[in-house]
Structures are given as C-alpha cells and as structure tokens.
C-alpha cells in the first residue's frame, strides 16, 4: 500500500526555509502569501501500514522539532 508522510516543522520552531520563501514571493509578483512552512514529504510502499507511526517516530521524522502526518493512499484527509 502506498503511503505518504507529511513532515513539517513543529509550531513555534523556527523555519528559516519558510521565511526565505515568504520573503522571496512578493518580489516575484506573488502578493498575499503568508505563514509559509517548508517541510519534507516521504512516500513509500508498505506492507503493514500499522508500522508507519513507529517508522516516523524512529526514522522518518525528528519528533523533537517536527510534526508528522500519515496519509494512506485512497483515504482522503490530504487537504
């Protein structure tokens, strides 16, 4: 089963990348953009989706500074 893990900086944790993107956009003619956060996306085939939570904790995300969200193929909730 294809799974998608969305990993983003925890609220309150500095996100230099997000800030850089936010500062760059107006100069490119894109107005009205705010609260940009840049994170990581991991997509993978898993036989046992029950393991995903623990994979995130142990390897995919750094729980000290990142939150993660697991989305399984076919489920909604990506929005």
């Amino acid at each position, binding site marked *: 089963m294809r799974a998608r893990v969305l990993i983003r900086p*925890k609220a*309150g*944790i*500095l996100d230099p990348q997000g800030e*850089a993107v936010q500062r760059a956009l107006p100069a490119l003619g894109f107005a009205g953009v705010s609260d940009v956060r840049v994170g990581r996306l991991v997509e993978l085939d898993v036989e046992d989706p029950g393991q995903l939570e623990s994979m995130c904790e*142990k390897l995919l995300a750094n729980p*000290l*500074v990142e939150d993660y969200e697991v989305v399984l193929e076919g489920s909604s909730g990506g929005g």
Partner: protein
Amino acid sequence: MSAAALELPSVEDALALGLTRAEYELVCEKQGRAPNQVELAMYSLLWSEHCAYKHSKKLLRTLPTEGRHVVMGPGENAGAVDVGGGLVCAFKVESHNHPSAVEPFQGAATGVGGILRDIFAIGARPIAVLDSLRFGEPGPAGGAGGSAQAGGAGTRARYLLDGAVAGIGHYGNSIGVPTVGGEVYFEAPYEHNCLVNAMALGLAPRERLVRSAAAGPGNALVLFGASTGRDGIGGASVLASAELDHDEQGAAAKRPTVQVGDPFEEKKLMECSLELLERGLIVSLQDLGAAGLTSSACEMASKGAVGIDLDVAAVPLREPDMQPFEIMVSESQERMLCVVEPADLDAVLALCAKWEVGGAAIGSVTDTGRMRVFADGELVGDMPVSALVDDCPLYDLRPEKPARPVYGAPAATAGVTIASAPRAILLALLSSPNLSSRRPLYEQYDSIVQSRTVRRPEQADAAVLALPDGGALAVSIDCNARRVAADPARGTIAAVLECAANLACVGAEPLGTTNNLNFGNPEKPHIAWQLTEAVRGLGEACRALQAPIVGGNVSLYNEGATGPIYPTPVIGMVGRLPDARRAGRLGFARAGDRIALAGPFSPTLPAGELAKLLGWELPDGLPELDLAAVAAAQAAVRGAVREGLLASAHDIAEGGLAVALAECCLAGGLGARVELGAEFWAAIPPVVPGPSGAPGAPGPELLAGALFGEAPGGFVLSGPAEALERLAESVPLLAIGEVGGAGLEIATGAQPIAATLDELAGAHGALAGLFG
C-alpha cells in the same frame, strides 16, 4: 504595575527555576520585597551556574591572564592577542553540550553560531572554527545510523556524532567561515553526556575592537537580527545547568525548547555588525547568547555601571502572545544588541534594513543603575543591575581526592594483548576510533573558504592561516581527558603541552590560550578536586609557556546516572609564525631524509590508548614531568621549522612513537625504515609497570612501552642528516631511520613491525564505517 505582574511567584517557583532557598531569600533582600515573575525569571538566569560561574569564579581568578601579546583578557565576549601588522586575533571556545545531547544537529549548529557571535561582538571578523567533540563508545563500525532509538551498542554515540558533525558543517559552511581543525574522542563516560565544544578565531584591526560596556545615559538600545520566539525558554537554567534527565518524560518535556540555527541570518547579522563598527555608528556591542536579552542587557549595563530601561513591546516577535518574561529569557538565535547615540539611530536602523536584519530601538541607557523592564510603557520589572550581575553568591569548592577510582576500567577490545605482535597492535591502534583518520569528519567541513588556509586538516599538527604580512596564525585544540582523569593536574598540563607542541611543529610560538572546563557536579568533593587540580595545572602550564589565558568557558554538571564525564579541560591555543611559506608539515616529504626522535621522551603505557584497548584501569597519577625541558624542546623544534631545516615535524601523542611514524608515512605517502637499536634502548627509558626486560632483548611490556607508550615531549622529525645533527645541539635527539620504501618497517631488537602503506591506510580509514 499590572495585576499580572503583581501576582507574585512563590519560593517553590524559585526552586523550580534552579535557585536555592537561600538564594531566593537573598533576591528578596536585594529587591526589598518578593520578586515578581519577570524579576524572578531574570534573577534565576543570571544567578545560574552558566551565567554566574558560582562554583568556578574563585578558581578562574588564579589563572594567568596577562602577557605581552594580550590585548583583551577574560571578561569580554572573547579574548584577543596582538598578531602584528596592526591586527589582533580574537578567540574563544564555548560548549553546547546539553543542547547537543537533546538534538545534536541543532545543538551543535547553534553552538557554532553562538561562538561566532562572541567573536564579531568584539569587532573581529571570524576567520576559523575548530570543534572538540566527545561521545560514548561507537561500537562496531557499519551498524545502522540515523536514529537515536534503534538499539545496539554504540548507536547513540554514532547518532550524536553524525548529527553534531553535520550541524557544525551546516552552520560553518553556510556562513563562510572555514572549520580548520578539531578533535574527537570516544570514551564510555561520555555515553550519557556528550561534549560539543566549538572554538572560533577572528581578525580585527587593533583600533576596531569594541567592548560591551553600555555608556552614555540617553543613548538608545537597539536589538537587531532575528525576531524573538519561544526558543530555548528556560534553556539556560534548565538545559544548561542541571544534570540531564534521561527518562522519556524529561526529554519530551524539554522538546519545545530546541533552538534552530539559521546561518544565513547570522551571516547578515555578522556583516551588519561589522559594517556598523567600520562606520563608527555604535558605542558598544553585545551578542545574545544563553539567557538572551536578560543576560546581554544586564551585562552591558553592569560593565558600563549604568542602568537600562527597555520595553518588551518594542521587541519584534515571531510568535503571538508572548509574556514579558518569555521575551526577556528567550534564547532565539542570531540576535545582537548595541548602544547607539541618538544622532546615529536612523543610520543604524537604515543599515539594519540594508542587511535585512530587522533593527528595533527597544530602550535606552539611564543613570539609575537599575534594570527596568516595561511592557507597553507599564513597568513590569525593576531591579538593581549590581544585584543581578554581581551579587549572586559564589560558592567555595570542597575538594577531596577520591579514595577509590571514579571510573571503571574500559572494556577490552578483543584482538590484542600486550604480548601480541607489535604489527598487530599497531594496526589495532590505527583503526581504533580515537586514533583513526578524522577524514570522514573534516571532509564535511569547508576548511578553505576565505583563502587563508595554508595547512588543512591532516597536513600538519596545527591549522595554519596566512596573515596579510606574510606571517601566519597557527591554532590547535586538544585535550586527552583520559590522562586528565588519571591525574587532573598533570593531565591538564599535558593537554596544554600538546597544543604547544602542535604549534611548534608548524613553527609557531604561543600567543594566548583559551579553555573550556567540562566537568561533572562541582558540589561533589571528588569533582571539586578534579576541577581544582585541573585549573592548577592549567595555570602552571600556561605560565611556563607564556601562553596566558585570554578567555574561556565552564560547563559543569556533566553527569548522569552512570557517573561523571572524564574531567575535560579543552585547551585552545593560538600562535604565530613569521613566514607562512615555512609552515611545517607532518608528512614525510622526501625519500632519503633521515628520521629522528627528538625531545625528552619517557613513554608510559598506563592511561594511554593501548592501555585502553587492553582494558587496563586508569592509573592513580601520571609520572612527574619536566615542564621546562619539554618547553625547551618545543622551542628548539619551533626554531628548526622556522629556519626551514626540517622536511617534517610531528609530535608524539596517542599511540606513541609507532603510531606517530605511521601517521608521518600516511600523510606523506612515503614509507620509512626505522631501527630501534642499542642507543635507543639506552636513551629512551620507557616507564613500564612491573619488571622490565634487559636492553637488547626487550620483553613485551618494555617493547610495547617503547613503541606505543605515551608522554609529552617527543617529536618525530625528518630532514637532511646535517640539519638533524645541528638540532641535536639544542635538544635530545636520536637518529632512528630513513624515509623511503613501500611501507613502514621498524626493527626493534625483538619482534619487528612491517606494514605496507596500503595496510596502514586501510586500518587508519576505519572511522568511515561509523557514518551511515
């Protein structure tokens, strides 16, 4: 004051913030009332071990801090020495141990950011970084990396190593300051308390140096750099001064305090700060480090004997709804504070805008001697500056030499015994984590940006950085903590000597020294003893070498359930050589050159690297050592390198003579034929435990002692025969061989060593396996 500010915290709150009951009562006395929340938060930070040096200040006062090269001694953000040509070199070492144990990448990265700010805070442009790292035993190479939680021996050490090295590289590489040297050791006592120390150097025209003392009532206080968030709130007192809490709950509770470094922000902050100084726009400058705005503003006021009024509502925030006390203690990175004359304020803010480092006038200098904090005009904290900065009680240590060993014997590394063939021992030593090549680390660092690096890692014992006048700076950072654990005073002397020997090998004379005292809990008598002894040794060695202490840092309470770390007084030393083109190298350079062993060298096995591989317990004390004789040998080697007489120079350190020879072969890509004949056995008496063999037929302990024993004072030199003969007039020197051949051959009078360069390189490359 507002209702919220008047809702007084209790004595329990004070205890939770790390103050003692007596300290809390003293705060009440100084205030003439119970402190409110803002005030208590500020007192608790400024009266923490980290800021107040409660347990070390009295000892530090015994260190030599003056000398003919010293321009700025301890007390400012960094020390500085005169390097000639109108330039000064600013330098300092600092620790980020506890943040790195929580999150190694960001902990190490922000450690580099912090020490760089200390350098440009005094007006110097950072030109180099060095790192000093300690982790637990890494276990067998090649295991799974990348995760702290995965089980298995050494996993945590490798996770921390990987993260810390990547973090240091990330910050230094991105900001354009070369990381030119460093050291890393793996020892069991660091398993639960890794050490991440970083040293930085900067250059400045002498007249550009700036102090941090605020001056001129009526002048404005400008905060510039990153906006302020909740990063590291309570970090200084909770993270930096308490014994690490290892249960999961504790780690979880500390999570939100992880500070994230932004080297790009710091690069702009650095350029902006230096341009402000160059244009003469500011009166004084101070970085924000541990304890954030609280520490910086109070230190500036204290040094200038003035008061400060500031309004937290003027501080640019990254997060909504921050309380005044949160703003005052936030440790958000990449921020600076400066004092500006009113007439220059607009120009300062305009320069901040050019560099896109939001500047904000947040207060002013007063003549009240008080630190007053406002929130949108309303007074929320009012304290005497002197009470905050000077009145924290200092504690006397109660040193007591431990009756029983503090540290257990290391686990023996399978494979070698004292009676093994010397060749097998040599290869085991070369591939051991503490001795193998650091290439997998330093290749992650940009060591050449700024076009000053004359000697890169592994080309010489010290990094060499060219100066505009044709001379060069040399810098080294070192501490063999196992020797300090065996004998805190002599071990510390040995660490200082090792730094000076490294400088001598490139032809440099010491100008000044910095140090980072990483120790356990000083309230325990045996730790107090280690600390007292180490500082005594530090002072003695720096006096003997005329390399005064110009700054440093203290990191205490590095212990957990399994006991204290090895006492680790990390030494950083900066020197100068007159001609960069003659900077020494460690690798053999020409086939046919003669090889000599120089210096007063009496190697011993206990406390050495081989003793560790064999699982020997630490000895109680190290042999006495003749500081003057070692200093004289260093001077002789330095002189010979400066004259260009030698092809290579390398000091003998961990792993002893045989390892030093192998390192010279590997660095130069050339073999060597060495013979330890009767003359050697007569001249170099290894200090061995138990009965020693007769000369000519050394027994295993004597043989191992000669080949692998360690002591300060020895050098492996190579060059033309005449040059070495000349040098023999000023230093004990023994010709032991010749450069050339396909590998290293050592005839010993008993079992010989023979290994090809490929075999040596294979063993020496073992560290690569530790990185995933």
